[in-house]
């Protein structure tokens, strides 16, 4: 095949990647291109180069997911947090941004509760709006309890809002609320989580399966690939801040209780 044709094919494959709801199993052309990417090294190299030029990075090309591409930070394809928060009615301030991003991180965590789930290509997670909200709130409460046990003064300094801990921002925000016209309050945490999941469904990363508990969604293989990449990057940044820790991969989300839990009852 000539160089021009190869380039055209490479870009066609990328174009499929920009339509996240399309999958190779539904489109003959797509399937051919995915197969070519997996067998033809030169084609793969050209595709990667083309992606790079557009400010994209290819995360995964499989029959199941199609081509999964993520944007580099300065790409025109990048979804920017500031824009997202503004678009969803927030004021675009740091506190709002953090809340919206927490909703996304919480959804990912609840969708893949164990480290093994994230590594398992065939795993499908299920999340609900209320579930994610309750989960993040509980996690925030735990961090709060720990902080209190360690004797920290948790009330933040007035006038220096940037130093306030993230869990405080979340716990402080109302869970839900009624507005005068019977709609749900968009700035409540339930509203924020609902927005996040609807947004992910629009992006073709989640699939809405029902209306139970504020909206039920299941994950797609594409979402798993994106979360894995996002998690790895974020982990890197946290390491730079010297915060996070290395675990043995057995997972930390388990229901356990210590004797003091029982006595506390």
């Amino acid at each position, binding site marked *: 095949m000539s160089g021009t044709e190869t380039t055209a094919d490479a870009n066609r494959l990328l174009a499929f990647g920009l339509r996240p709801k399309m999958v190779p199993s539904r489109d003959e052309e797509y399937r051919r291109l995915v197969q070519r990417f997996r067998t033809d090294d030169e084609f793969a190299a050209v595709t990667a180069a083309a992606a790079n030029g557009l400010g994209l990075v290819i995360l995964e090309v499989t029959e199941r997911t199609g081509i999964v591409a993520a944007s580099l930070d300065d790409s025109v394809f990048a979804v920017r947090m500031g824009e997202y928060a503004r678009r969803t009615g927030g004021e675009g301030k740091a*506190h709002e941004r953090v809340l919206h991003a*927490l909703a996304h991180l919480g959804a990912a965590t609840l969708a893949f509760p164990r*480290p093994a789930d994230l590594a398992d290509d065939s795993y499908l997670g299920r999340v609900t709006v209320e579930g994610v909200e309750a989960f993040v709130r509980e996690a925030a409460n735990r961090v709060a309890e720990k902080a209190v046990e360690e004797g920290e003064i948790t009330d933040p300094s007035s*006038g220096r809002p940037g*130093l306030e801990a*993230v869990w405080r921002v979340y716990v402080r925000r*109302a869970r839900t609320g009624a507005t005068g016209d019977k709609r749900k309050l968009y700035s409540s945490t339930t509203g924020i989580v609902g927005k996040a999941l609807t947004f992910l469904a629009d992006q073709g990363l989640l699939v809405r399966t029902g209306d139970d508990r504020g909206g039920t969604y299941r994950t797609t293989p594409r979402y798993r690939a994106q979360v894995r990449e996002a998690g790895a990057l974020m982990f890197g940044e946290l390491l730079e801040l010297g915060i996070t820790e290395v675990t043995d991969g057995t997972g930390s989300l388990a229901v356990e*209780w210590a004797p003091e839990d029982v006595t506390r*009852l």
Partner: protein
Amino acid sequence: MSELALHAIDLVTLAMDFDAGASPERVVADLSTFAARQVPERPTGEYERVARWVLENLINVGSADRGFRAVYGLTGADGHYERRDFDFKLLEEVPGADGDIYLRASNEAVNVLVGALEIDIESAQIAADIRLETLIRRGRLSDAQAAAQAARYRTIQYGEMLRQRLEATSRDVRSVDWLTSMPDFIAEALEHIEARYKAENAILVNITDVRDTADTPLRKQQAAALVEIVRDCLRRHEQLQAGLQNAGRRFRAEQDRQTFAPQPARADIDLHAQLLQPVLALPVHDADGVLSTFFTREAGLTIPLALRLVDLFTALVTPPIERELLGGEIEEPELSDEPEPPAFPDECYDYLDGLLDLDPEAPRRLSGLLEEARELHPELPLLLVVRVLALAAQEIGPARRHGAESVLIAVDDGTVLEDDEFAGTDLLVARAVLVPPQELEEHSHMGGARADDPRLSLPSMRERGAA
């Protein structure tokens, strides 16, 4: 107003249980009646407006967080004076299981109430505070009520813990310690139930007594309410006890189910321990950048529009396609009433009637009939077999009711049919004369007996080649 506010908190707290909270509409209604008692002779709508205003202010509608913030100063260990924010809520709106919004009183609000109840009226100066007067005046009965309610909360709490543990067990047996802590928990919960059961039965006896002997209607009413609460407590204890009894069985079932489940082989990042927990502890300033990194990669791509002016112009000048409101006309389908053509030629039916017009005294074998039919018409044998099979199932009762003179019957006497086209039994085909009912006793022996004969039902005829 503050009296109303306290009353509102009180209403919400009393209506709270672990499933839901207080319904806002009911609180508003109750609050309006209280307001009406406070300031009588005002228009009804005003009471409701007041109630709503109080409620909205307790929730602090209008602020982004729907809460309150108090600023206080503190001198730190290094002698440095610092102003800090204290955030709290009084009434919270929470989602109920049915998707509606319910009200719950926050810990801060409950503390205010509990504090008010425990204050010794004689000595404390605060007792003079008129805002709390109504609450305190409810007297001793309230104490018992508070105790019973606290016990009920604890029961619900136990139930909630039990439910969480059982759910976790059904996901992964190893995630819950069934060796030591779970048995301890169950034992403790059972102890709690036992103690409460005794105590509340005692309370129940006492207050039922109070209710029956109370001298003022108010006191009677209070006692009656308390009886209801205690009954509810007892009911919840029983629920928990049933749950506890099932716990062990459920664990064993889950253990059996999960023993052979494969272990996950690979692992990736632990989103909870490595990302969520650390980031929650970070200050907003640092978290903002980190979370943005996550979000940008996780949220997928936004597709910018590449607009060509010509396309925009074309799109703008293209008239919208007009659709008729009712859609196109529906054409009536033409239906003809042609009768279905008979499956066999007409002459076959004539031949058949001739063939089956048998002498009642001379039944014939099917094989003989078939032989004759073959000579008359090539399609006649099949028609004959179909007719004879139908006859084998013919009922004599209806035929007699319709006044038929005779009925054709086919009897299976065990002889095998030897034929090129059909296989099965060589039936005896006969025409039985029907005798009028009055002569039945002497004559109908033949017909009646044959109708009851099980062999008269459909014989095991099998068609070969003709199907």
